[in-house]
């Protein structure tokens, strides 16, 4: 986000949006990591049977 886009009234809204961006980016990164490790784990579990 470019700072010159924010007005004083928009600042709290902007901060909230930054928080939401960070939170959702982390959530999707965790989902991706879950698929990566989940499939390796599934293959390991299958091998142990």
């Amino acid at each position, binding site marked *: 986000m*470019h700072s010159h*886009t924010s007005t004083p009234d928009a600042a709290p809204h902007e901060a909230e949006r930054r928080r939401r*961006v960070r939170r959702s980016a982390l959530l*999707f990164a965790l989902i991706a990591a879950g698929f990566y490790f989940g499939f390796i784990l599934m*293959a390991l579990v299958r091998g142990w049977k």
Partner: protein
Amino acid sequence: MAEQPSHAASHDHDHKPHGWRRWVYATNHKDIGTMYLILACTMFFIGGGMAMLIRLELFKPGLQFFDPQFFNSMTTMHALIMIFGAVMPAWTGLANWMVPMQVGAPDMALPRLNNFSFWILPFAFTLLLSSLFVPGGAPAGGWTMYPPLVLQTGASFPMLVFSVHLMGASSILGAINIVVTIMNMRAPGMTLLRMPLFVWTWLITAYLLIAVMPVLAGAVTMLLTDHFFGTTFFTAAGGGDPVMFQHIFWFFGHPEVYILILPAFGIISEVIPTFSRKPLFGYEAMVYAVASIAFLSFIVWAHHMFTVGMPLAAQLFFMLSTMLIAVPTGVKVFNWTATMWKGSLSFEPPMLFALAFLFLFSIGGFSGLMLAIVPADYQYQDTYFVVAHFHYVLVPGSIFGIMAGVYYWLPKWTGRMYDLKLATWHFWLSAIFVNVLFFPQHFLGLAGMPRRIPDYAVQFTDWNMVSSIGAFGFGLAQFLFPYIIWKCVRGGQPIGNKAWEGAHGLEWELPSPPPYHSWTTPPSDAVIARGAAH
């Protein structure tokens, strides 16, 4: 246009960096989009060059030019380069350029991550292409990397695995950026059901990417540990299961097909209404159809493996779930046709590519239905019929979709109109030669010619010659594409905000070319409503 400064004034306030720093340190979505598109075009010509070598060898029976190992390297590298280097980066480039402008956002939500996602790719493809020069040659076991065959790859094996990891990381990071941008950066008033179809299809594509690219990464990580660290995930001798790799690969691989085609659905849904001068027929049905196709793509993977052997119930399930995809796809084709019905049609290059997409992608869809029939698939499996099928989906499907998108938005990006006559020539040459190239491959496959072979029985000679002539024609015609773009950038006729009379959408409310930082003030509700005329 009250929300945006005038064209000249906006350029005075661009504050863009100059020289190499503008590109290496780029965080602007338009610059990064341009770099993605240049990379995709470069890879398209490299991958296309490999296709020409393949068709050169197959022009006549017998071994003419290459040894079988190099031929197999060419088929493997052609697929990897075209899928991961040409089509996927082209879609990401188009998303970078268009998504922020179409949702009324000033940029992507995570601009530095955007820079990182792009700059991973040149290293990934340098690594992959440099494997051509190592002892043993480039990977030759097919893009599907099935073990145990792929584990016999020479020194290029770790290069293949590492480059696939890099491509996957780039795609996942890019997809996260796009989802986060669409979910958090839309202008006030840009509700989900006001978003252009291109944004919708990319949102769904990005979810697919986040779910399945890590699965591919997991699969190749296990290949790596099998090769170097003594694990036996896929080695039967150690208690592993090579067929499990196929299941994991195709759990990624089938959604990947939709990753390659869904954004094209979005572009066709933009182009057809514009050149029919009518709103898109059944906007909401189109959104639900794309979402249904994406959901179904997760439960059809084993149709790639019917001949491997599986229980009858599984064969029936995967056959029927695959056929079910024809329903939402049929909804889309019907709605595109209904959009044109009684429209005031004109046939500029984007519309020509969209119409060819509609006809030829449907042919690819129909041959896909044939392949979904289990007993028939036993005959078609690993023949040129399969090659014809997926090339009809990916060339007049994905590639024509990209061409339609570039010819649609190029005037917006550059502020100049390209040579319409030359682009029409590009279309007709491509549309004719793509059929000369791929249609005879249906006949070859039905007659029993196997795929991935450098030599064949003499009865297949005639159609192979026709196919190769089509390939050379198609390949030569593509040189028009960068020339048309170069000519447009250098000296096309300046245009106004709207390049096309019937165009709707926020991007057409901006000047052409758009200012370096667009929508620094969000568009008003009235502007959004005017753009969302579906």
